[in-house]
């Protein structure tokens, strides 16, 4: 079904596969850049990933590194990094890391492109005009957030204790570098939960209110890649094909949900993060089957088709037409159970040890204030959210 009106944007170039890192100097030179600011975090520095990146960027000045980036990137960090960029006379950004590093880099790109404007003044949704071009390359080191392909950055304001959301087509990295060396050392537990995060992006993108033919194409490609390689990536971490499939799946899912948005799983997941500090990826994995069950009556056709992409043509053909939607949900439950058995990924809220039932009300209240709830295909009221939380507990 084609919506009455939709928009789709995905302007980034993708360099994916063996020796992708070594293409960074070429990509920078094509953008007339030679003095990048490398953004990363100290953990990746300790793991030797920064050295690997610098070695791969042969012939480029890689001396300017900003690694003081911590989980839940803040506007103070963005300001410091932007100042450092200006002081060092950098002309481009290379961000290597997970969601926090990439979101910080998006913030820095915004500030630099808007001639040093204060980051807080740039907050908004589709409001930022195009500024000075800042070459911006993203090197993701997890396969989950898809931040390298999204037009969204979430940056904390610690003084106000709020998360600021920046939504603009101009903050998407121009080049995504997907190199298998970046994710091969991820432990199975992290591989599993981040992959479920990516799968959740794709499934919500495929079923939410803002879905459109282009986001569907991306979501389906992501669902196929992730569902067919996830278990291999968890059980055989050095399997390069599986790692690349996960990296691609995550990036493609990012492009899908950046355009179609997400739904109830994310609204409740964000609230669980805010109230109980449950890791985002864990919340996604736990909530996904429950929210799908809730949405089932309005998403029967979508979830029926989902089975084909999730479980393959054999499983799709073997299931009766009226059972396919339910089978999709069962496939997710079964995948969660396998990941729980394999690497102890939590599949109930109780297993996270971070929430008690008396917090459900606060979580539900917060979820109702999350913008993602607008895009869920079925209205989610407070009572239903509490019921979902009880089921997921």
């Amino acid at each position, binding site marked *: 079904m084609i919506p009455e009106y939709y928009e789709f944007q995905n302007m980034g170039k993708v360099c994916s596969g063996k020796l992708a890192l070594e293409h960074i100097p070429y990509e920078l030179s094509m953008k007339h850049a030679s003095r990048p600011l490398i953004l990363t975090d100290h953990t990746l520095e300790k793991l030797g990933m920064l050295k690997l990146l610098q070695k791969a960027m042969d012939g480029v000045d890689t001396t300017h590194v900003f690694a003081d980036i911590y989980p839940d990137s803040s506007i103070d960090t963005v300001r410091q990094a932007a100042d450092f960029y200006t002081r060092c006379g950098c002309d481009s950004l290379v961000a290597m890391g997970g969601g926090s590093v990439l979101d910080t880099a998006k913030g820095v790109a915004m500030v630099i492109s808007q001639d040093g404007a204060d980051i807080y003044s740039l907050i908004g949704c589709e409001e930022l005009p195009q500024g000075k071009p800042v070459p911006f390359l993203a090197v993701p080191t997890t396969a989950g957030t898809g931040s390298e392909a999204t037009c969204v950055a979430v940056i904390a304001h610690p003084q106000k204790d709020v998360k600021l959301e920046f939504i603009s087509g101009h903050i998407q990295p121009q080049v995504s570098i997907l190199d298998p060396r970046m994710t091969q050392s991820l432990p199975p537990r992290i591989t599993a939960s981040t992959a479920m995060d990516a799968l959740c992006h794709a499934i919500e993108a495929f079923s939410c209110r803002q879905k459109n033919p282009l986001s569907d194409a991306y979501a389906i490609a992501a669902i196929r890649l992730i569902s067919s390689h996830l278990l291999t990536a968890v059980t055989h971490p050095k399997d390069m094909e599986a790692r690349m499939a996960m990296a691609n799946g995550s990036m493609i899912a990012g492009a899908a949900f950046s355009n179609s*948005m997400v739904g109830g799983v994310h609204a409740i997941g964000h609230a669980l993060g805010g109230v109980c500090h449950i890791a985002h990826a864990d919340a996604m994995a736990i909530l996904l089957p429950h929210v799908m069950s809730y949405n089932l009556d309005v998403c029967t056709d979508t979830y029926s088709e989902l089975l084909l992409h999730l479980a393959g043509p054999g499983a799709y053909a073997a299931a009766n037409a009226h059972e396919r939607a339910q089978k999709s949900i069962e496939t997710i439950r079964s995948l969660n159970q396998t990941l729980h058995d394999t690497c102890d990924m939590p599949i109930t809220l109780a297993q996270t040890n971070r929430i008690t039932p008396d917090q459900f009300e606060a979580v539900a209240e917060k979820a109702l*204030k*999350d913008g993602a709830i*607008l895009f869920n295909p*079925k209205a989610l009221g407070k009572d239903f959210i509490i019921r979902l939380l009880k089921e997921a507990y």
Partner: protein
Amino acid sequence: MKRMQSFICRIVLAVLFRALKFLNRKDTRMKAGFSAYEDGYSFRIRAGMESGAPVLSFCVRNGQLEKQSHEVPVQLEITMKSIPDAFLVLTGQLGIGASYAGHRFFMRGNPNEAMGLVTCLELAEAYLFPRFLSRRLMLDVPKKEFPALLVYAGLICPGGLSRTGR
């Protein structure tokens, strides 16, 4: 055509503010929605990007809604991308959620803080529009705490109704 749409949008925005103000006094959910914003928090709704497009600016002051100058900077500003887009939304042809989903407006301010306003606007729509229209605009139409007729009466003579103490 556009001038007519602009004129209608101007009227609807004026009616909408009166409804929001009235409901903020009478409807517990509306009151809770606006009281979640800090005192002085201000909003602006622009029905189009053109200069001279209809605008509504207001703020929360001591629990009440007050109109304010269109020149003063606000914390949350929603701008419809065109007058025809605004016309669709303000005349009940397109829901607020659907207009967000369909990129019909852009926003200055923290999108995370917009949901409270969206909920209040949907609540006002539920009172102002007939049920068959509201059901087309929203996935779940909020229940009315009192008859819509009271709101219409409140729009015509806000002072008179407030004396009833309701």
